[in-house]
């Protein structure tokens, strides 16, 4: 009987951990999905926005001892600002150009940002270790780490907030209009340039916030961006490109699958699993699991 209990406990633990991770995936993938949905830009420096958010939190914590959760707004702001500036001066030039140019552009920005960070902060791994890091509570045989639970909560709330913003708020609706039909949106008087700026800033901001959250329980380092970018891409394909609620579903699903892989195989294969999953979806259902994504 004991053995069976242990097996179930292990499975449940993997599921819970995966769910919590998935919430964060959803959060930072929403930004990616938003930018693609509206501007048709595949943002390859997406991971760097996470990195910036994470390091903002780290430095504020290390230098000024401010609790990481309290500095989230600053992470949001720093990533948002960076995103806005890059969008205004660089992205805007390629947004109407063939897609090849825009993602080469974002790729170049990725290289620059990642290596600037490397030059500035060295390749050392860093962590944000607070008094409550590692604390958790138990539900039966399952441990729920506090930091991850808080992260999950904030991520879910934010994802819903973004969704609400896009549905109900005037500016949010303008963003959706622009993503559906640029020309028509222009005709009804929507300023596309402002929409682009808002979209990018918003997408970058939520991504930065996710970065700040991640720093509370993962190691961070300047080159951390790329694997996250790949993950975000896979989450968005899973959930449907450009469809925000899909990012939630995709994120949770991917989180659970990765957790199961890490528990029963090895965590080193996480990217491999992500890709295999991506591949399968592309073959079977390119519009994403919920069938609402943009297909090419």
């Amino acid at each position, binding site marked *: 009987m004991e053995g069976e209990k242990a097996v179930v406990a292990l499975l449940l633990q993997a599921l819970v951990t995966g769910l919590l991770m998935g919430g964060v995936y959803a959060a930072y993938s929403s930004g990616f999905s938003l930018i693609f949905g509206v501007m048709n830009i*595949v943002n390859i420096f997406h991971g760097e926005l996470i990195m910036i958010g994470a390091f903002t939190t780290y430095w504020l914590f290390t230098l000024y001892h401010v609790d990481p959760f309290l500095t989230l707004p600053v992470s949001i702001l720093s990533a948002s600002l960076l995103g806005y500036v890059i969008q205004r001066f660089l992205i805007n030039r390629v947004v109407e150009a063939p897609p090849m140019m825009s993602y080469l552009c974002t*790729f170049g920005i990725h290289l620059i940002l990642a290596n600037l960070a490397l030059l500035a902060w060295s390749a050392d791994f860093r962590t944000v270790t607070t008094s409550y890091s590692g604390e958790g509570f138990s539900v039966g045989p399952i441990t729920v780490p506090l930091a991850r639970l808080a992260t999950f909560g904030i991520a879910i709330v934010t994802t819903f907030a973004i969704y609400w913003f896009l549905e109900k708020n005037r500016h949010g609706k303008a963003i959706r209009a622009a993503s559906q039909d640029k020309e028509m949106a222009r005709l009804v008087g929507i300023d596309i340039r402002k929409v682009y700026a808002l979209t990018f800033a918003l997408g970058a901001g939520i991504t930065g916030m996710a970065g700040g959250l991640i720093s509370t329980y993962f190691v961070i380092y300047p080159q951390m961006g790329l694997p996250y970018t790949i993950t975000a891409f896979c989450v968005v394909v899973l959930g449907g490109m450009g469809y925000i609620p899909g990012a939630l579903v995709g994120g949770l699903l991917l989180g659970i699958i990765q957790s199961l892989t890490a528990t029963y195989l090895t965590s080193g294969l996480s990217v491999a699993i*992500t*890709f295999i999953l991506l591949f399968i979806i592309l073959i079977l259902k*390119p519009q994403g699991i919920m069938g609402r994504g943009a297909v090419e």
Partner: protein
Amino acid sequence: MLLLLFPLLKPQGYYFRMFSMMFLWMGLSSAWNITSGFAGYIDFGAVAYFGIGNYATALLMTKAGLPFTSSVLISGILSSFIAMFIGRYTMRLRGAYFGIATLAFAEAVKQIVFEFDRTFKVTLFEGSHGITLPIVHDDRFFYYIFLGILFFIVLTAFLIDRNKFGYALKAIKEAEGSAELAGVNTRRYKVASYALSASLIGILGGVNAYWLTYISPLDVFSVIHTIHMIVMALFGGIGTVFGPVLGACVISLANELIGAKLLYTYLLMLGAILLVVVLFLPRGVIGLISMKRSRR
């Protein structure tokens, strides 16, 4: 028309190695250019085939005892088969998405080769131990081999540029929808070019393994190699026959001179070059030259 380099009888070993390296990169970027430049499907995961070629040759030579030439040829064929499979599905995606999907593929292969032995408790890829190949003390041998392969690749690119195959690829790059309507089997041509690029890159990878005599997953599957192919081809002139050759020449020299000492700065420079080319010089140096010529 550019003159081809004739094998000069240089006495010093260092020069042989330097030129070998340059020929390797000129070959790699030209091979990459066949899919990414001619057909317009920018491959962000080309290093996967480079690594596969390295490993296939290394394993065949060390574990199966096959001679060099057959190992390399088998590596090339293996690469093309894998590419045919992967390309069949990933090329359903539009340009930008193809890019990230191939990037994820390359990262996945890297992780798989790295973690395989440890996960499945076998001794096959040797993971982080790396593989050591028999040593050949003949720099001149590799000089001629790399030069020969380079010649073959550039010749192939030249022929493709002039014949029906290249015409189809360029049609795909310019207006894929129209090409399909005109009855061109775009999928077959796309995948064929991808497989061709992969096999050439795989062959170069195989020679590389024998040349370096020691390979490990994190080296030969590193994304930096793809970055180099991209920046070299773009800088010289993507989509042209000699552009990648020129670009590789310049950048591999830059790598040799500053890459070793100031790595992060060098990578930053690559990112900056990428941005400059994308924003201001999309047709690369060759494009610039031909623009100046046509103004006379």
